[in-house]
């Protein structure tokens, strides 16, 4: 499967372990993510708070580039990026005048032909029935808490993915890998996201709740498909433990880590050894 790959700032920077894992895992499934040439910011950070038009123009340019480079599907592994791209596509679909205006701003035409996928949708596209027979090392002793975060399913009318409040698509993948996902409460709660820069205490409190609930429901690890969530739950876990006085020790995996492990890829190749919380 040929696929446009939109890394966004995270996968080339703080979360390049995610990219490493993604490339290793998808390569095994004959999915070929090709980085969009000359991609720019998705508009997620300051743009959408400061300038509405800019927050559409930035993702629209990325969509237009993917289209020019002959792609039909686009993978944005960061949920913030995929939501921004989907939002721009939706707004332009609903308003032909806006599409013309944005097209003239970005000096390219985004017709809306490119379909934006999140990471889970790529696995769904490959087909769970095709992943199942190639599982080499079933993750039988893994009881992951599948964590979707705030953006994978929201806003529902933009992303149109899974049940926004009680999602189950990641659990379905886990079941195929032989893992036993736990039923827990904080699947779609906020981890604190970018507040990690501005007001760390918020992140420490919000992420603590997520870790605590996962632990209470018998999880022995978390799995996520968001670089920001991974930063807050993995890198900050030590700080969270110090802040709350609780001990979690819960490894946090990217979705591609666990699929990769089950397919027989080594932890080093997936970059799992670069995570902060190690498996005990």
């Amino acid at each position, binding site marked *: 499967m040929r696929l446009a790959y939109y890394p966004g700032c995270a996968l080339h920077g703080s979360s390049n372990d995610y990219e490493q894992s993604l490339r290793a895992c998808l390569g095994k499934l004959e999915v070929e993510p090709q980085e969009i040439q000359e991609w720019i910011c998705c508009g997620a950070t300051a743009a959408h708070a400061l300038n509405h038009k800019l927050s559409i123009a930035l993702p629209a340019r990325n969509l237009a580039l993917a289209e020019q480079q002959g792609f039909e599907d686009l993978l944005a592994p960061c949920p913030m990026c995929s939501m921004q791209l989907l939002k721009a596509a939706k707004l332009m679909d609903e308003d032909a005048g806006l599409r013309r205006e944005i097209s003239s701003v970005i000096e390219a035409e985004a017709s809306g032909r490119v379909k934006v996928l999140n990471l889970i949708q790529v696995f769904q596209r490959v087909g769970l029935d095709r992943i199942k027979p190639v599982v080499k090392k079933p993750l039988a002793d893994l009881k992951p808490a599948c964590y979707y975060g705030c953006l994978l399913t929201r806003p529902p009318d933009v992303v149109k993915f899974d049940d926004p409040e009680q999602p189950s698509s990641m659990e379905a993948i886990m079941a195929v890998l032989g893992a036993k996902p736990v039923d827990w409460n904080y699947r779609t709660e906020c981890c604190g996201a970018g507040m990690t820069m501005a007001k760390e205490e918020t992140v420490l409190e919000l992420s603590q709740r997520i870790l605590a*609930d996962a632990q209470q429901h018998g999880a022995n690890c978390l799995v996520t498909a968001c670089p920001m969530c991974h930063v807050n739950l993995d890198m900050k876990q030590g700080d969270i433990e110090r802040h709350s006085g609780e001990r979690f020790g819960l490894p946090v995996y990217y979705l591609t880590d666990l699929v990769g492990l089950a397919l027989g890829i080594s932890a080093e190749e997936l970059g799992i050894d670069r995570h902060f919380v190690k498996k005990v």
Partner: protein
Amino acid sequence: MSRIGVFVCWCGENIARTVDVAEVASASAKIPGVRCSVHYKYMCSDPGQAMIREKIERERLDAVVVASCSPHMHLKTFRKTVERAGLNPYLVEMANIREQCSWVHHDRSQATAKAAEIIRMSVEKVRQDHALQPIRVPVTRRAMVIGGGVAGIQAALDIADAGYEVVMVEREPSIGGKMAGLSETFPTLDCSQCILTPRMVEVGQHPRIKLYSYSEVEAVDGFIGNFTAKIRQKARYVDISKCTGCGECWNVCPLKRNPSEFDFKMGMRPAIYVPFPQAVPARPVIDSKTCAKLIRNGCGLCEKKCQAGAINFKDTDKVVEEKIGAVVVATGYQLYDIGKQQTGKLAGYGEYGYGKYKDVIDSLQFERLVSASGPTNGAIKRPSDGKEPKSVVFVSCVGSRDNAKGLSYCSKICCMYTAKHTMLYKHKVHDGQAHVFYMDLRSGGKGYEEFVRRAIEQDGAKYYRGRVSKITQQNSKLIVRGADTLAGTPVTIEADLVVLAAAMRPSPGVTDLARMLNVGYDEHGFLLESHPKLRPVETNAGGVFICGACHSPKDIPESVAQASAAAAKTQILFAAEELTREPEIAQINEQMCAACFACYRTCPYHAIEQAEVHTPRGVFVKKTARVNPGLCMGCGTCVAVCPSKSAELEGFTEQEIYSMVESLA
């Protein structure tokens, strides 16, 4: 018509201030064929009408033009006036020189000239008018009531007590509707079943009520006074004429663990069952989806045990026909399905965990939980572990007043029944605490506000103005997170039970029924009344009336009042043996009709029939469109679409309209 009388009204100052009525009257007198032309201060007053009658008699007038207000105001008045003077009532025209002239103009001379022209047009029209006779249609004095809830029961009993026969059709195995499952009712806390079941028995025993339970209306043909309904009696597998209701069959049935529809899945029932002890008819029905005999030819114990030989596993659906003259629709409501993605934007409320957590239930389930006839015999035990909940959170407006993923309207009764729920709970669990999240408290109604205050002040329910954002579960407690917008703080409550007051929606399938009956419905599927203020139980389909929650969310008193209103309207229809209708309806010139049936397809009242013309010896000549005078409402759509100009509207013929236009040239 050559002896036309023109009567110009001043309408006090309404017309006379802007229009020179004397000048208009004298100008009208000069129109050829006008025999007399007079003006008077109030033509609609008794002396005014006497003047018209006197002129008709003395001047031997053969047509009358009254120049006054809109025909909507007084056409009926003046038709009666001329009729009393011996003139055909359809030989009077009204020239509207008030709404269409004096009220909308300032310049006296221009308004006067315009009034004269309006009158001239009416004179030309009345010249073309001919006498019309009211249409008489025989009436089958027998009503069908669809739905056997409290509204349907009230309507049926009122009509039957007035001396007319009633056919009642109920979809479920028993009548009683939602009310039969309620515990106590607001604002008096009297027992719902105690006040309803005597009425149900009355229906069951009434000599003039024919009850079709476990049946559905499949088709309705005909028109006001003359409907034919096809009713499907679903296979019950029990012959209710033989059955004595002894109960041996459901006692012996081994398949006892099927979720009970009547208990909203809070309790269990056997495969052969009566929904509740006071059911009418008190005869069981076999659930073909669970009965072992019907699925795989096993078991059959009930048949062996039945002394009366009433069990019939070979039973099939039967379709019967009933002739009726009026229909009362009382199909009631269902609750918003909170957990599930539904049609369109109704996305469900996954955040409340309904369907995921056993102790999150909806308000009708709570009714069964507190009802003495419910699965716990009225003891408040939560579904998960049967423990008595010490803290209960009630969430109102679930699905109501929510444009994002619910319904835009207010479900109207939830504020009241939630207050009731907190009281019933407190009366049974004295050390318990009820919490209510609400948007606004809407307690308009006799004794309603006082009732809500009692819940808060005497029974100590805690009310928080705000919404709940998420419900999660921790160690068998439900963690309810919400906002108190009056205090401006987030609220977290550890609850043992959560009750969601789900929005009221019309019953499933009601829009199919509406199409069958030619009744309109709104975007939510609620049936449309003919006029929101003045014709609240009539519909645009003649002879079809609505009452209860099929029209909009309603409580019991309002449903009952509306049901009696629908019954009264039915009795008005049945008061005469023949139905008189206005003769201003469409007619098809069958000789000219090319049988293209453009009119057939466009008629909004389905009043056009496809007919055949035969010679007196029965030889087929041609096809033609034909108007059913019982159904035609005289809207004129067929006249507009007919390519061969074969359709005419009596009282508004093309000739009449053209001569009006010509008079202006």
